[in-house]
Structure formats: C-alpha cells, structure tokens
C-alpha cells in the first residue's frame, strides 16, 4: 500500500496484482507513447488501446527532411506522422515494422514475438484534423506487419469524431470537435470499449467509482534531472475499493493523456502560461472518461501518469505531450525516446513495477 498522503500526495504503493493482466491505452501523444511503451516492455502487457496515434518511431521515417536531426524529427512528427497529405506521404508501416525488429534485435526493447498474443484497440475519428486517419490506418498495418493476428485487433474508423476520447457526458465538446481538452460527447464510453476489447469478459461499469483516487509522487521514478523528463511532479492512481481492502487486482491499466490534457496543463498565450485567464485542467481526464467506473467493477488498478508543459526551458514541449519525437533525448542526433532506456518509459515502467510489487527493493 502507499504511504499516508503528505500535502495531498502519497508515495505510490504496492498491491496484490494477478500476473499477466496489465495493459495500457492513450490518446494522441499518449497513443504514440502507448505504442512505444508496449513495444519497449511487451512482456509486461496483454494489450493496448491506441486512440488517434501513429506507429512506432514514426518520426524517424524521413531523416532527410532537414539537415539537423531534431528539426527533421519535428517535421516528421508534424507532417508525416500527424497530417500527411495522402497515404503515400504518410508513415510506411512495413519500414517501421522493420525498424522495430531491428530495435528488438539490438536488445533495446522486448522481443517482438510477445505481441502475437496481445489484443489491440485502434481508433480514428473520420473528422480528426489533428492526427489524420491515414496515420492511424498505418498503425493497424504496423501491428499486422509484426504478427498481431487481425482478429485480435479492433480497428474502429467509422465514427464522425474529431481528435478526442469520446464519453457519454453531454457536457463534453461536440463529437466532431478538434479542440482541447479533446474529450467529446459520443454517446458511449470509449474507455469501456478499450477495456472490453483488451480483457473481453468484463463486468458492466460500476455506477460510482467508490475506490481510492490517489495523487502520487512521480519524481521518485526518475533518475537524473527531473526537469528533462517533462513529467509532472504528481501522477494519479485509481484503486478499486476491494483492492484497497486487500483483494488481488486483476491487473493494472495505464492511461496516458494526450497533449494539452495533463491535470496541470495551462495553455500558453503568446509564449506565456495563461494562468490568469485559465485555470489548470484539473482531473477531468482522470475522473470524467469512464476508466474508474470500469476499474471499480473489475478490480483493475488504473495509473494516470502525467506529463507537463514547458516552453523554452530545458525541453521544448509547451503542450505537455508525451515524448514521441525525442525531446527528452540528451543527444538529439541519436535520440532515445523509444526504448527501455528512455527516461519517460523507464519512469512509467517503474511505476507499473511498484504497483504490481515486482520492483527491485530500493537501495538505502
């Protein structure tokens, strides 16, 4: 269990968790990171949910976009991996699958064969103007190229949704909107669809999430300078009542928010945080997307790690995105945002190990 909250923030605790039941999902930059984390630690997961995300190491599609690597990766991210004009100017799933195999052969990620038993949910809205459906289709092709059987992939591309996770809350944005906080009203809970596909035989969601919603300290999961990670100091976790009372959890599901969705996110207005005009988003993505209700009735622990924004500081990440283009890499010419060694991936996996009680004891 976690320690007592101090200033509202507890140390993330260890729980009884049945082995072989962990999964991950994310939206947008969280979806790109979902693919990266799943690839890096495929032995730790049974499935993933990718909402409006592209394939692994997509930003390395075309190094020739600019003379300098960091410029090339940004250009790749913006145009080839988010808004390609056509399928032929979008990600090449076959090439990126080869790159993934090479990465595995180099020992930087878990063996690719682990993916063959995994279940993957992939979604793109037909009105998505941020990460175009062309890109997300290549994500499906990427998984297929790596041997995930087609029947284990749920590919949904028929909803007139913008760039969003959809919910059944009519107070959220219209379904076809492409604007922050990217939580849209879609007459259904996408989180339930994701968890349903990954786990299959789930109980219906609880009416109310009566478990514990915890704020935990993320800094302890980072070795080296914390500022370089672009992660928030505080993450969130949902622990179902029964699990908090000592029953074993069925698994842990990690939820990765997208850009401009972190709980402490504040928009930048003309390069300055618009704190006076706009309060931080708060826990809307954490409490309003339906994960907790499903977790409550199915004894799933949910982790909500948080990235944070920084414009012009140690990293260039004003929108608080997860790193899928190398901004955390110390050496931009040899970026390492995609492997087990990547600073964010190390931190995320360490959180999972802590919760499942599989982390090595910390040296004193």
């Amino acid at each position, binding site marked *: 269990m976690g320690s007592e909250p101090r200033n509202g923030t507890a140390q993330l605790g260890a729980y009884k968790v049945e082995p072989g039941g962990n999964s991950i999902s994310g939206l947008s930059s969280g979806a790109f990171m979902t693919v990266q984390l799943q690839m890096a630690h495929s032995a730790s997961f049974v499935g993933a949910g990718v909402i409006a995300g592209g394939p692994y190491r997509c930003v390395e*599609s*075309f*190094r*020739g*976009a*600019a*003379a*300098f*690597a*960091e*410029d*090339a990766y940004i*250009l*790749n991210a*913006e*145009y*080839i991996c988010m*808004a*390609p*004009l*056509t*399928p*032929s*100017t979008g990600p*090449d799933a*076959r*090439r990126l699958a*080869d*790159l993934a195999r*090479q990465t595995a052969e180099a020992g930087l990620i878990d063996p690719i064969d682990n993916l063959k038993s995994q279940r993957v949910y992939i979604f793109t809205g037909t009105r998505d103007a941020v990460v175009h459906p062309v890109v997300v289709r290549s994500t499906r092709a990427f998984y297929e190229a790596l041997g995930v059987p087609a029947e284990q992939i749920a590919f949904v591309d028929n909803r007139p949704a913008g760039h969003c996770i959809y919910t059944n809350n009519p107070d959220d944005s219209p379904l076809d909107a492409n604007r922050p906080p990217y939580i849209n009203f879609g007459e259904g809970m996408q989180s339930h669809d994701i968890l349903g596909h990954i786990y299959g035989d789930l109980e219906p969601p609880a009416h109310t999430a009566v478990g514990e919603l915890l704020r935990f300290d993320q800094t302890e999961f980072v070795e080296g300078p914390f500022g370089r990670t672009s992660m928030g100091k505080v993450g969130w976790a949902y622990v179902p009542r029964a699990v908090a009372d000592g029953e074993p959890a069925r698994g842990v599901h990690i939820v990765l928010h997208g850009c401009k969705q972190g709980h402490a996110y504040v928009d930048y207005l003309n390069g300055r945080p618009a704190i006076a005009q706009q309060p931080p988003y708060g826990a809307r993505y954490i409490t309003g997307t339906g994960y907790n209700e499903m977790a409550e009735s199915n004894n799933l622990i949910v982790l909500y790690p948080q990235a944070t924004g920084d414009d012009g500081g140690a990293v260039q990440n004003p929108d608080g995105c997860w790193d899928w283009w190398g901004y955390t890499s110390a050496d*931009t*010419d040899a970026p390492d945002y995609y492997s087990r060694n990547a600073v964010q991936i190390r931190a995320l996996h360490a959180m999972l190990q802590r919760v499942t009680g599989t982390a090595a004891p910390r040296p004193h």
Partner: protein
Amino acid sequence: MDTSAPLPSLLPVGAKSGARTAPYRTHVPAIDHGLKALALQQGHALRAMSAAIATVRVLPRALDKEGLDDLWQMQAAIGERVVQMQRGWVEGWFGWLRYSGQIDGANTMAKLAEREYNLAAQAVQMAGEQCEDLLGLMENIQVGYLYWVSRKAQDVGIGVI
C-alpha cells in the same frame, strides 16, 4: 528492396546538431532571432532545391501509373486543405467584423479603449494564425513531396538524389 536502409537525400543529414549551437547563438536576442530565421530559410531553400533536383533525377525513371496516381492525390489533397484553410479564415474575419459592429455597449472611455484593443489584438492574432497555417501547409507539401520522391528513388535503386 531493403526497407531498413535510410531513404536517399540531398540534404547533409550527417550534420551534428551540436555543431550549430555555436555559430547560430550569440546570446543577443535580436541577432539570434535573425540567425534562426536565416537558418530556417536555408533549410526551406535546401528542401526546395532537393525537390527540384529529385524531380529531374527520379521521376523520369520512377513515374509509373501508381506514381501518377500518387501525384494526383497529392494535388487534390493540397487543394482540399487550401479550401479548408480559406473557409476558416473567412469565418474568422466575419466574426471579427461582427464584433467590430457591436459598439453600442461601450458606454465609457475605458470600455471603448478595451474594445478597440480587443479588435486590434484579435486581428493580429488571426493574421498570425493564418500565417502559421500557410507556412505549415507549405512545409507539409515540401516535406511530403520530398519524402515521397525519396521513397520512389529507393524503389528504383537511386542511392543519392
């Protein structure tokens, strides 16, 4: 075809990022901004030149029915994005005009000054966003085309464009 090999490129992609920090940073903001703009314009010019050279070198050997279809799709997609962009601009400026006509409620000097400032700020913001949209589309076309032609070059075995 070896899909693991890097795509051919004219750009000096071996350039190390560390190498540019010294020449491009004087720590005098006005100069640094100018140098940064210059560097980005150089990149833009280099991509344009690469695209032109690649077109001459690669297309005669690589332009088959599929390639023509790709180019047609690109052309259509560009047209569609331009129309979408212009629609957004028109909506934005109509909104601005509507706001500028709502002057009746400005009954104090302070309120009038606020309204005038808002009008100017909205106009500057919209102009800035439209400039970003346009430059973004231009970069997208450049990068997308260069990427596409590099893949075509690899398909027909041209190692360096």
